[in-house]
């Protein structure tokens, strides 16, 4: 076919949200790819510490004092001493798209040795449709060199809007603590050259290390929960957001992609610290998965906010008995939506629900 048109930069439509407690030296490596963009830095931990941002980047920085000032009592929904605080960045952004990345993630190389522009790939993923209703065995059909396979109905080939682009990691894989303890030396060296849509009705464990999404579509669902200081659990923030997001995307007919791009994850966190954080989650997860698999959203939930509030009600009703934490979380979910709507008063994005889509 004819030449592939270059990916638009979207530099005025995309914010990069980075949570950090240490420093942002990693941005030097990303400079060729990130410099055109506005950064939102959410400083976790001690607000008296000064985070040094490398020269030449356009950014706004928020610490805990800023979060408290801006949200007032609603700041209680934003985690303290946990990278989950990053979702505050999503809330204050005014852009259409968000890319979030951890400060121990660097530029990876593809098998040919070329540096991977992860942001460009995420943009391509978000700007091209998803195909959640029927799995294409050649993965992303809109990629150059690929297409739909024989048997794929033509009526499904236009796809649906992509709400989320979930990237992966070379080097230190995103394992839970038990797996890290058993396999401390395992490194992910397999470059899987594919992007695919996660089918409708299928849940996945979303990782926030290398994640992009259409904020205008799904932003309100990207609440990273109550983690860290004063909370009984950690390292479940992104997964919680991912399960809520996927259920809502399935309901509203939007797609979630996973696969490329890869980043290079450099730092292995301490598995014993992780185990302490995850410990309860490992048990609770056994309840959470059936819960999310069976969430049914009524047809009149036509906006993300309405869907999210509905999920929070069901969290309280069905998970409250697992642990009181879930009652607090359900309340925090409501607070989050209230705060979101206050800071983003331009109105909800309604989605036309496809016929008979609700489970």
């Amino acid at each position: 076919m004819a030449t592939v048109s270059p990916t638009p930069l979207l530099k005025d439509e995309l914010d990069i949200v980075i949570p950090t407690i240490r420093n942002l030296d990693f941005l030097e490596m990303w400079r060729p790819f990130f410099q055109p963009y506005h950064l939102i830095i959410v400083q976790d931990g001690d607000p008296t510490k000064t985070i040094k941002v490398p020269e030449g980047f356009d950014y706004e920085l928020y610490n805990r004092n800023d979060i408290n000032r801006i949200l007032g009592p609603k700041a209680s929904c934003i985690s303290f001493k946990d990278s989950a605080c990053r979702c505050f960045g999503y809330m204050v952004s005014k852009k259409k798209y968000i890319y979030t990345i951890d400060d121990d993630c660097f530029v990876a190389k593809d098998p040919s040795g070329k540096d991977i522009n992860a942001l460009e790939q995420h943009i391509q993923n978000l700007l091209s449709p998803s195909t959640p209703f029927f799995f294409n065995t050649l993965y992303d059909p809109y990629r150059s060199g690929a297409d739909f396979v024989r048997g794929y109905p033509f009526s499904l080939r236009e796809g649906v809007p992509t709400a989320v682009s979930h990237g992966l990691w070379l080097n230190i894989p995103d394992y839970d603590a038990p797996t890290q303890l058993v396999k401390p030396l395992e490194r992910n060296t397999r470059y899987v050259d594919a992007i695919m849509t996660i089918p409708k009705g299928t849940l996945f464990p979303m990782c926030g290390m290398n994640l992009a999404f259409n904020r205008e579509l799904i932003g309100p669902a990207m609440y990273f929960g109550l983690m860290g200081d004063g909370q009984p659990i950690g390292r479940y923030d992104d997964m919680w957001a991912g399960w809520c997001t996927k259920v809502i995307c399935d309901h509203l007919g939007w797609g979630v992609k996973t696969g490329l791009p890869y980043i290079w994850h450099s730092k292995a966190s301490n598995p014993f610290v992780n185990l302490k954080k995850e410990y309860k989650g490992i048990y609770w997860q056994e309840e959470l998965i059936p819960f999310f698999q069976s969430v049914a959203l009524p047809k009149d939930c036509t906006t993300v906010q309405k869907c999210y509030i509905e999920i929070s009600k069901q969290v309280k009703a069905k998970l409250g008995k697992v642990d009181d934490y879930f009652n607090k979380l359900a309340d925090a979910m409501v607070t989050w939506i209230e705060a979101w709507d206050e800071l983003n008063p331009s109105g909800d994005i309604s989605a036309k629900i496809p016929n008979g889509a609700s489970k």
Partner: protein
Amino acid sequence: MSLAIKDDEVDIVIGALRSDLTTFMNEWRPMFSRFHLIIVKDPDLKEELKIPEGFNLDVYGKPEIDQVVGSSTSILFSGYSCRYFGYLVSRKKYIISVDDDCLPARDPKGFLVDAVAQHISNLTNPATPFFFNTLYDPYAEGADFVRGYPFSLRGGVKCALSCGLWLNLADHDAPTQALKARQRNSRYVDAVMTVPAGSLIPISGINIAFEREAVGPALVPALKLAGEGKCRWETMEDIWSGLCVKVVCDHLGLGVKTGLPYIWRTDRGDPIASLKKEWEGVKLMEEVIPFFQSVRLPREATTVEECIVEVANAVKERLGSMDPVFARAAKAMLDWIKLWQSVGSSSSRSSAV
């Protein structure tokens, strides 16, 4: 984690739609020679098969097919559907089946891909259909389940079907290949993954493997297009068969994997000529996919045969009046189950829920 399997648990079944299999067999020799092969000659093929020496194989043609199933039922086995006869008469636990215009592929490092070994690995390692692992196959070397994957689901379920892919001539339909006449698939995606439960996929018959004992009867030679021909662009029988298998696997809690291994599919045929000859198949998918997405099997259907009978009845009831091809497919499915029970079942065990 995989089970060690013995060579005599495997049959390689080849449907021969062309007579000269010399290059095909010689190229596959390093991968095939350990195993027993079943070669089924398309009953419509007039020429004698040319097969090189040195293989342990059985060859079946029209006379044998007629003898085993009767000449009225043998209509089921013409063209690409001849391979199902091989599935029927095999007595092995695992079957690997590739089209006769496919050769071994090379991986990005230049090594020949042993598609047989990869399929066997896929079938003997568990599948994980209930939750998507973002690092794909968790049982692969150097991989595992990611953070957030429930521990209770990490044992997985049996993998009943392994669907491989194709380099060079990918399995696009005729309109797509006609539009992109020069497009060839050169992207080697180094992953195997389980197709999630409840999700359907178009399963191409070009490069598959399955556990015959678990799902054999579910691979049904049923959907014969009016203009069905001797190019894959002129068929949908495998797509139909694959949808049946996936629905049955979902119901019985069995897994289906897709991805590696790749084979190299040689250039053959003309998509425009095929499109002129047979274009109905593409249209039919518009009805077929929603039908399979909405099929619900009753709890009482606990064996593969029972499941297929249920699907066949649903086809007859809901699609039968739409197009005669569906009514014929439903009947063929019921005939197939009867055949399987009389001819095929001496070593196949049904999967109970």
